């Protein structure tokens, strides 16, 4: 829009208005042009004011603000804890060894030297990358260490475990591995040859399933956060409808009208994120005692994973962004409603 009308009125006013103080009236005319610098300073000032003002508005209604933040927090906690649980099961760990390992179970009646002979024989076969013999005694020892079942195993007269040979085939082709397993299974003294691939494949599928479940829940709950924030902001817009109308009438841009509500959305999102972190920490504390006891019962040192600083920052960024977007959508809908037709 042109500056014409304004400049004209300025000239008119300065020239025709009775000016008892010429210095003063000249200053008035000059400062009538609002410079770009003044405008950008005003923009920053308005941001600061709206950030503080919107926070103040939330503080004026502590209960309803807290309830909104709590709803956001709960919607954030559920997918986040699912993510952590999957992470602790290492299902999300994508660098699972993808080679096809196989285990040869030897006849328990064989002596240790016989087992070593068979290992040499296996190593002599083609397509073998490496072999590792786990004698019956070594197997029992690691079994005891891992599961802490000393007493139960000590009660047994004989070692129930057979000696095993871990074989790493050179080829990664499942079919070739299958053929190799069949060939090795026919060696004298080998009772069974098991390919670990099936298990590996199942684990991979399970991890994919887990990832998809987390993603689906994440998307659903993110949508939930958007709706919660959107609805809350819609009510805030509704209660300040007259103010929006007035500032729009006197030349406020959409950005100006939107700004206070965007800050409200940001504060809701940030508050919800902080509450979600508190909930996650409390939940971990609450579950850690029984899990420690359970784990020590199995002789394990398993601990529940925390969300960590990186995860915390990510969660806060996500919740804040969701608050911002929810607010944006709510105000934009209202602004579209009042645009001229």
């Amino acid at each position, binding site marked *: 829009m042109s500056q014409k009308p304004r400049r004209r*009125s300025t000239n008119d*006013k300065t020239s025709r208005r009775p000016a008892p103080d010429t210095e003063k009236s000249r200053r*008035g005319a000059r*400062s009538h042009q609002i410079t770009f610098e003044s405008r950008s300073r005003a923009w920053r000032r*308005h941001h600061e004011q709206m950030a503080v003002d919107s926070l103040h508005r939330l503080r004026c209604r502590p209960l309803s603000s807290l309830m909104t933040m709590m709803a956001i927090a709960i919607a954030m906690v559920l997918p986040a804890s699912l993510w952590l649980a999957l992470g602790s099961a290492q299902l999300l760990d994508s660098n699972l060894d993808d080679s096809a390992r196989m285990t040869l179970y030897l006849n328990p009646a064989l002596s240790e030297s016989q087992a070593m002979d068979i290992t040499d024989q296996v190593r002599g076969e083609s397509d073998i990358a490496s072999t590792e013999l786990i004698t019956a005694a070594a197997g029992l020892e690691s079994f005891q260490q891992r599961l802490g079942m000393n007493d139960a195993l000590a009660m047994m007269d004989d070692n129930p475990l057979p000696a095993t040979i871990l074989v790493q085939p050179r080829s990664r082709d499942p079919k070739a591995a299958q053929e190799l397993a069949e060939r090795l299974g026919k060696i004298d003294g080998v009772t069974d040859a098991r390919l670990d691939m099936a298990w590996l494949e199942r684990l991979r599928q399970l991890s994919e399933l887990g990832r998809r479940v987390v993603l689906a829940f994440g998307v659903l709950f993110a949508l939930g956060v958007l709706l919660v924030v959107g609805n809350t902001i819609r009510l805030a817009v509704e209660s300040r409808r*007259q103010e929006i109308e007035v500032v729009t*009438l*006197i*030349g406020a841009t*959409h950005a100006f009208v939107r700004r206070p509500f965007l800050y409200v959305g940001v504060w809701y999102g940030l508050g919800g994120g902080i509450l979600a972190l508190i909930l996650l920490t409390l939940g971990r504390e609450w579950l850690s005692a029984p899990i420690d006891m359970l784990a020590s019962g199995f002789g394990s040192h398993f601990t529940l994973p925390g969300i960590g600083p990186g995860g915390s920052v990510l969660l806060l960024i996500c919740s804040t962004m969701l608050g911002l977007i929810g607010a944006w959508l709510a105000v934009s809908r209202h602004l579209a409603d009042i645009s001229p037709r």
Partner: protein
Amino acid sequence: MAMIEFAHVGKRYGGRFEALADLNFTVQRGEMVFLTGHSGAGKSSVLRLLMALERPSRGRIVVAGHDITSLHVSQIPFYRRQIGVVYQNHQLLFDRSVFDNVALPLIIQGATPQDARRRVHAALDKIGLLHREKALPIELSGGEQQRVGIARAVVNKPAMLLADEPTGNLDPQLSADIMRLFEDFNRIGTTVLLASHDLALIARLRHRVLKLRDGRLVGDEEAA
């Protein structure tokens, strides 16, 4: 030079009701013009079109040489900053002081606080309410509230002042005072377009009168 030009302007609501039909008139810069007619004659539609609150169904509206009917939504705020509008119901914000209400257009335009304070004081001084700057609008009388509305409309020195029934709720004495304010602004060059159905008051003031009936211009009487 023309400030406002309506050329074959028509406005239909909901595709059926015709609020304005083929309206043609021109208001020169520095003129003071009354817009009269019964309620429903189209006064408010004319003002709403001039404020770019609505777009005409037909025709062209040119303000200060610019076609405002084709303004993009993002340009409308900058257009509105150059016109001052006074409403019958004042449209003041009741949760903030008189000062803050008058300063609102300046805040929106990004004036510095010092500049805003000086100009708000000047506007309040002009309408005689400088001593009430800290009051809330609710503490003021109807006439005082209307004067605050006027101060807000003129605080950024617009070239054009629009008023929709500015004296609608006021007694004759207060109405005359308010009209004198508009005349003062007109005297220093502001174009003033006032919608009113207070015919007695209009007759006394001797300005050009545009008369609307059923969305058509039925009279254009030059100032006597």
